[in-house]
């Protein structure tokens, strides 16, 4: 099962390797963000150096896959042929308050016409596509108020 209809471009690690640890972790059902070993600051998206102390001693570190909705949008107009018959879908920008407010983008599972509350807690749901070419994993979100995973 996938949240969006199949046919969108599949994420692969950047050729320069910058975000490769993120995707490798996602394939294992683990969420990792970048943290500076020198000053301890978190940052996302990944960079080659720490934006705060400018050290290049950076690590990808596992975080609890829970955050809160910083913003969201309900998309109606398809801008890709694969989404022609999709209907509305929800994209959320999820913030990690315990990790210097780093944010990542994903879809919000459930009714696409549900009311969405900014600030609401969400948890990650890993959508694995091991049989696709290439194999890949997407990181989605569901409301903490939804029981079970």
């Amino acid at each position, binding site marked *: 099962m996938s949240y*969006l209809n199949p046919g*969108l*471009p*599949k*994420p*692969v*690690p*950047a*050729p320069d390797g910058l*975000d490769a640890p993120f995707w490798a972790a996602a394939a294992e059902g683990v969420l990792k963000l970048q943290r500076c070993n020198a000053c301890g600051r978190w*940052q*996302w*998206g990944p960079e080659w150096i720490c*934006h705060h102390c400018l050290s290049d001693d950076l690590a990808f570190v596992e975080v609890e896959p829970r955050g809160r909705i*910083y*913003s*969201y*949008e*309900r*998309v*109606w*107009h398809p*801008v*890709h*042929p694969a*989404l022609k018959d*999709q209907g*509305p*879908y929800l*994209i959320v*920008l999820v913030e990690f308050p315990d990790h210097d*407010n*780093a*944010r*990542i*983008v*994903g*879809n919000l599972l459930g009714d696409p016409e549900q009311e969405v509350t*900014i600030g609401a807690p969400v948890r990650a749901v890993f959508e694995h596509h091991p049989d696709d*070419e*290439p194999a*890949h994993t*997407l990181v*989605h979100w569901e409301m903490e108020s939804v029981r079970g995973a």
Partner: protein
Amino acid sequence: MERSLRGRVAVIGVGETTYYKHGQSPDPEFKLALKAILAACEDAGISPKQVDGFASYSNDRSDPSRLAAALGIDDLRFANMQWGGGGGGGSGAIGNAAAAIATGMAECVVVFRALAQGQFGRFGQGPQRNVIAGDTAHTVPYGLMSAGQTFAMKVQRFMHDHGVEQSALRAISLASYHHAQNNPRAVMYGRPLTEEKYDSSRWIVEPFHLFDCCLENDGAAAMVLVSAERAAEVGHAPCYLLGAVSGSHHRAGASVHNAPDYATSAFKTVAPRLYDMAGVGPNDVDVLQSYENFTGGVLMSIVEHGFCEPDGCNEFFVKDNLIAPEGQLPTNTSGGNLAECYMHGLGLNIEAVRQVRGASTNQVADADVSMVISGPMVTPVSCCIFGSEATL
């Protein structure tokens, strides 16, 4: 010497091609660029062979060397591109041209933008390939891939933070369509918009209805800049540049929507520099052209340029406040990107010049201070202020 562009350079000519719906231009893009440049030179009353510099933005494809060859220019002295996509660099390109003139690098610089989407493909479409890597690998697979989708996320948060209602966005669209009905050049001339038509239009991506989104067009626009001294000797009453600035705030370009100050048009640090250079404040501005990629960008831009408090948007953004000639802040008086033409905003700069000349189809009385905000959210953003002789 004071380091400022204020009053040192003037626009002496403006030119536009016919504006077409996307894909409908009978001319290829390079010819459109030439036509707009020739029109601007004719308006200025100069020979195109006197042009010695070009400035553009958004990776315009009409190469200055080829333009200079086509126009038979003897001595090309300045060829400049403002970095950044979309319309963020419109006023920045004017600033770059002015800086070249003010410092003696060039004498007569054309700022231009040409677009033929029929020839080169449309905006607003997602990438169609099997895999994606890099920053966009973290957005595109989730269906976040167009400009509208990128910016709706910011606007949604701004509206949440400040209790902004849909009617505020609607007022911006209504004002643009209102002005376009008096502008025969406008693509939406003869196609008025009502509140009902707006409300019943389809969602593109919440909070943007169809009419919150810019058009997609083919055409070209150009303007001719020279020193203030030389401007005094030619054609029109000169339209002086009082200031032009560009830039963005701390980590505005952080990828995957990670700008720390996120719900912003990106003008918080830029607008104060513009007013400082121009020597005016928001209360002095007679008429405003504010780039509409999406109405939400206009709303945040106007707030961040000090015309309205963030928590006062619902009261400020009503149609009557935004229309010429009597509105408190006549805005997008040509119809702008929503209803005149989407030429990555250079049409807005041309309209601002027309207001100073007294030649707009929606003229504001005594428009001495005429401002342009270019490409909100599209960093580096830019803005500029033009003034009449009375402002010097």
